[in-house]
């Protein structure tokens, strides 16, 4: 079984030590062994994967390989993938085979990276535990009684269990970073607009952003190189010059100013998480960084603001799922209104319905100003806090989530308790800033702890530099979950 670093895999493929087909087959075998217990994948199609791998091998043989050609990757089931079932974790799309590729999928295909399958997720990316998936909860590879986080829980779990060397995720309020933290991997949410949202099924359009999930920051940098780029099909896509996100990773951290927002180390933060994050700060200081005390006062309003804006956009984005043209339609109904209400009552799960109701309410006549407009104003204040902070620091550091993974079912009965899990991740989405999570320790139960970095707009290379230097000095990201002898995966090269 292969070494998980993407650059190592790429080197082995380039030197023909292993073929893309062999590599893909090895991962498919591992998926066959582990996925029944973890449920990280909704769709696996070995035939399609191997065909794509064979095409990658042909590219390599022809000397037309790119940096990651032949390295397989798993895609969150939120990305439309031509010819693949694309469910978004919902009964509503349980039968939807996409007739086109999302821009992100196009880019990975163009890079010659075969798809290992479509990963499980909270329904329409709404959830922080992966328990809202119509296809069943994903189990945390570190302990299957615990949640992997969400909504990109399948992606995080499959990478943590090395069922895939890397995965795509999407992050609306923490959906890349929180599961990355809970599963002990590295995940990055880029600046809003850096990765095209075309073909990515919309949850909250002004917040959604796709990003890479992999064991290390170095891997994420390579994946980001593939994913980013202007797309005329997405009007919010930014037309900027291509960057190499690995370019700064080896720079020393001397002189780095790390901002520590006091609100992120206050009440509500688990002690073990706090200790691990503080230890990471110490580590960075050893590497030459200095710390600055900063305040993100308005971030305390991030959750209420988010739970006005995201449901508002979601209620509208999900209107197209009406049983008329594709997806689920109730088998029996009277008239048109009855078809709509039965289809949507049966096709959506409870959390999705809750958010549609909240969203429709805050946009309704007479409430719009009090909720939606007010939330937009506070959103601006939250972004302003960050702008102020970045005058005195280069990167903001804190915990990714207030705690480690929780037990399946523990919070699913209490939506507000669940929502609080995204307390530290949501502000970056509201401001459109890049954020990432990387492993920084374990709690007493052996569950991973995540460290969050938030950077200024377009400072991904800087964040990856900090993360890479930290990962050179530590080995948290190299640790593997105890999946038994059957795994046969080496965590280190």
């Amino acid at each position, binding site marked *: 079984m292969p070494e998980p670093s993407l650059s190592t895999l790429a080197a082995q493929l380039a030197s023909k030590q292993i073929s893309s087909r062999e590599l893909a087959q090895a991962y498919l075998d591992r998926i066959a062994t582990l996925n029944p217990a973890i449920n990280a994948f909704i769709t696996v199609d070995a035939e399609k994967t191997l065909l794509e791998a064979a095409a990658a091998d042909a590219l390599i043989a022809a000397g037309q390989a790119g940096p990651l050609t032949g390295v397989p990757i798993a895609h969150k089931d939120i990305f439309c993938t031509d010819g693949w079932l694309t469910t978004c974790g919902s009964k509503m799309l349980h039968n939807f085979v996409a007739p086109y590729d999302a821009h992100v999928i196009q880019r990975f295909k163009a890079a010659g990276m075969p798809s290992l399958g479509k990963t499980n997720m909270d329904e329409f990316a709404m959830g922080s535990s992966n328990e809202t998936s119509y296809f069943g909860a994903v189990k945390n590879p570190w302990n299957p009684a615990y949640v992997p986080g969400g909504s990109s829980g399948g992606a995080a779990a499959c990478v943590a269990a090395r069922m895939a060397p890397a995965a795509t995720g999407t992050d609306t309020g923490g959906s890349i970073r929180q599961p990355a933290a809970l599963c002990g991997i590295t995940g990055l949410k880029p600046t809003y607009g850096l990765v095209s949202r075309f073909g990515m099924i919309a949850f909250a359009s002004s917040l959604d952003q796709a990003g890479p999930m992999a064991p290390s920051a170095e891997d994420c940098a390579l994946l980001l190189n593939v994913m980013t780029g202007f797309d005329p099909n997405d009007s*919010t896509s930014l037309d900027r010059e291509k960057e190499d996100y690995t370019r700064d990773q080896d720079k020393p951290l001397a002189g780095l100013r790390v901002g520590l927002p006091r609100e992120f180390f206050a009440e509500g933060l688990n002690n073990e998480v706090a200790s691990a994050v503080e230890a990471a700060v110490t580590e960075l200081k050893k590497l030459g960084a200095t710390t600055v005390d900063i305040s993100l006062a308005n971030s305390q309003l991030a959750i209420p603001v988010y739970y006005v804006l995201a449901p508002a956009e979601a209620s*509208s984005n999900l209107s197209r799922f009406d049983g008329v043209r594709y997806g689920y339609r109730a088998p029996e109904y009277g008239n048109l209104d009855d078809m709509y209400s039965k289809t949507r009552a049966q096709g959506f799960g409870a959390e999705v319905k809750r958010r549609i109701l909240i969203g429709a309410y805050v946009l309704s006549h007479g409430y719009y100003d009090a909720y939606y407009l007010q939330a937009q104003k506070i959103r601006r204040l939250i972004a302003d806090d960050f702008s102020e902070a970045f005058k005195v620091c280069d990167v903001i550091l804190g915990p990714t989530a207030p705690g480690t993974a929780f037990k399946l079912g523990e919070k699913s009965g209490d939506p507000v308790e669940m929502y609080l899990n995204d307390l530290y991740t949501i502000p970056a989405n509201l401001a459109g800033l890049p954020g990432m999570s990387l492993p920084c320790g374990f709690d007493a139960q052996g569950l991973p702890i995540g460290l969050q970095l938030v950077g200024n707009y377009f400072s991904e290379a800087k964040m990856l530099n900090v993360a890479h230097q930290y990962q050179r000095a530590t080995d948290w990201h190299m640790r593997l979950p105890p999946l038994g002898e059957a795994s046969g995966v080496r965590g280190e090269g």
Partner: protein
Amino acid sequence: MKWETVIGLEVHTQLATKSKIFSGSSTAFGAAPNTQASAVDIALPGVLPVLNRGAVECAIKFGLAIGATLNRVNVFDRKSYFYPDLPKGYQISQLAKPIVEGGALNIVVGDTERTINLTRAHMEEDAGKSLHEDFHGMTGIDLNRAGTPLLEIVSEPEMRSSAEAVAYARALHTLVTWIGICDGNMQEGSFRVDANVSVRPAGQAELGTRREIKNLNSFRFLQQAIDYEVRWQIETLEDGGRIEQATVLFDPDRGETRMMRSKEEAHDYRYFPYPDLLPVKLDEEWIEAVRATLPELPVAMQARFQHDYGVSPYDAAVLTGSRALADYFETAAQACGQGKLAANWVMGELSAALNKAELDIAQSPVSAAHLGALIARIQDGTLSGKLARQVFEGLWEGAGEVDAIIEARGLKQMSDAGELEKIIDAVLAANPKSVEEFRSGKEKAFNALVGQVMKASRGKANPAQVNELMKTRLQ
């Protein structure tokens, strides 16, 4: 009690772009169902809209043409409601920040000219079509029209009669086709009118409760629907009833409006700014570039026609009823150098013939150049008015050039004094009684004699010359 009618119109004009407002699909009319519906148009999961610059330019042109304010930053919103031919469950429209605000349009009703102010005009996408026939109790959905660009043009409630409403709608129709932003085809739904109608006691400042008549697709229906609605509202009020705000449909077969939905059933559209589309920014350079593509506008052309060709204000208004008509007139007028005569021919003989044949000016079998040549032959005395009509018939039939027809059909006016005198002498000799009558003071007898000369010349005699010669002879 005396009542005053108050009318405001909302007109949906389909913009004449080749592709849809947010996708690359064709907007051509009449294709097989759903063959012009892309992934974006049918709202597949994950698709995103991309704004068509051409649609924005149409809106800019309109704003410039009516002297409106162009909002330098304007914003698209989502307008939510469920209907099977609305694929996304919301329509992309503009609510709070439309591209065009204000502006005005002049209308003429009878002898009165009025200015009607516009409230706004905003860009939006059309919905698809629901086909309720031919599917055995089911409804067919055709999404070819979904995403077709529209400009919704809203007037102030300043019209006071159905005639004014029709005049406004016609003036607007002329303008949008004139500046080329809409093909104006009402049968195909390119120009659809909603009328907001209310009545109030004459002299009352406060507006009455309005009802909105939806989707009127001809000027005749607009007039009929408003007339019916006004009668109905006045009768209801005079019978002690109340008007409830409502949306109604006009049934042309019964000539009645009927309730579609009451205020209580009205949708809450839950508008909010479109997060996938950036605000549309108009800079001066873009606006000026679009302005440079605008043709001369009807108002300016009317003034110029009066000045350059000496036509009356009324004629100038008629001649600028469409750009094609105005261009035709101007070409003919320039070809003959006779503006007034050209105006008479275009509005008289030509219009009558086109009406009779149910042809548009653009389809006229007689070209403007030919008509101009014909008028030139009247002017130089070659043709009398009567002969000219015969030549016109020849031109209509496609018999060739003006002079060739005159030659071939022998329609040249007889202006040779010698020849005419011979005929006059013969007529006078043959009608001694009339000559007697004229000499005894009966002026009518003179006309009878001239008529005889014309008849004898088979209409070719130059009437003015005959008059002259006859007078000399009878003195």
